[in-house]
């Protein structure tokens, strides 16, 4: 008896049968679903990163220690960049395990993952998803301003820089502001609003300002600018309901 005949005998004796096709289809579907989820999360990370890059203080780099390079080092969204790369690796891992995935080089798959995340992420940014996620995290995760969005931490009233959300405005244009650490400030002064950044001082708008801290709860503003450079997202996000 040959080896082949032995094997067939064993198959019959042990009632071994081919696994049903649906099992393989389910497995393939799981790989694709995980791939799509990875693309989606990667895209959300890209949207937040884009939001942070666009809405950075590029206009004020000369006022900050270290100039433009210092600003880049201080505010580059490392956390989100790492997350994007991580999900690009996950996308690559999932695609590699599809039926034909091995035919493509890992570098190409990672680059493809980043490209898809970039395209979908840009769309998500435009519909406000990036800003909303950033807002939610700033609002609910205390360490986020240290690791995720480090921009808020460079706005230090001690150094004449204050940022936050307008809580109320009086008739003379003076207003109450709540900064990102929930500290409330009375803002005084005859401030100017640069022409390049259209801004209406009204309740709910996120602003940043240059000036002087007068005392623990009072700030004299010289220049007031919108917190968001992309003025479509000037209003505090729906999740940032600090005005009660």
């Amino acid at each position, binding site marked *: 008896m*040959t080896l082949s005949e032995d094997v067939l005998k064993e*198959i019959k004796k042990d009632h071994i049968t081919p696994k049903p096709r649906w099992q393989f289809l389910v497995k393939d579907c799981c790989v694709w679903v995980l791939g799509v989820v990875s693309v989606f999360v990667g895209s959300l990370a890209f949207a937040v990163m884009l939001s942070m890059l666009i809405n950075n203080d590029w206009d004020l780099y000369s006022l900050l220690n270290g100039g433009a390079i210092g600003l880049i080092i201080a505010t580059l969204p490392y956390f989100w960049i790492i997350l994007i790369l991580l999900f690009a690796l996950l996308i690559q891992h999932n695609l590699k395990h599809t039926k034909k995935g*091995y035919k493509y080089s890992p570098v190409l798959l990672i680059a493809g993952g980043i490209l898809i995340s970039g395209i979908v992420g840009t769309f998500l940014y435009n519909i406000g998803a990036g800003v909303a996620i950033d807002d939610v995290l700033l609002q609910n995760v205390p360490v986020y301003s240290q690791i995720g969005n480090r921009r808020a931490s460079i706005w230090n009233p001690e150094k004449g820089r204050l940022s936050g959300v307008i809580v109320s405005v009086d008739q003379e244009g003076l207003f109450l502001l709540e900064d990102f650490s929930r500290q409330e400030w009375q803002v005084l002064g005859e401030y100017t609003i640069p022409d390049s950044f259209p801004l209406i001082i009204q309740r709910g708008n996120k602003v940043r300002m240059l000036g002087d801290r007068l005392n623990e709860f009072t700030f004299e503003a010289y220049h007031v600018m919108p917190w968001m450079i992309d003025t479509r997202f000037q209003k505090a996000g729906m999740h940032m309901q600090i005005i009660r």
Partner: protein
Amino acid sequence: MNKKACEGKTDEELVKLTLQDNQYFLCLMRNYEEKLMRYIKRISNASTEEAEDVLQEVYIKVYQNLNDFDTSLKFSSWIYRITRNEVISTFRKKSSRPQSFGGEAAEIILEKMASDLDTKKAVDTEYLQKNIYTILEKMDIKYKEVLVLRYLEEKDYNEISDILKKPVGTVSTLLNRAKKNFKKELDKHEITF
């Protein structure tokens, strides 16, 4: 199942027939028994008994996974892939790696590689016969297996890509490196001796 019933049928047709009647699986197994036994021995240096055990496992796995066979792939590439994975897994279980090729394999590789190597120096055949095993022994397993598939199993780049589940470009790079590696070892020996 007599051999006549298997004649004139492609592997892919036999897969479909096997799913209806397992007797046809005998045709597939017979078609590959000799080739795969040789392949297992070449990449693992296993004894005939060990190779038979591995092949038996391979056939059972192939049968169980017949519904996963992708018809856009050659059946031979698929069965070689399963065999390679089984060899690796068997050796991993035994806490050892697949070893080098047998003597016959080394000689065939050398003969077939000679034209590709582009060696300007005349190589002493007698010297090579004495040292070929030492040279191959020093090569990484990833280079050895690609040499086996290309020069012994005579698979083209696409088939090797399907068997190893690596992009064609990677296969090509591996093969080039394997040849360079081999040539470097040759040169090293010529200088030493």
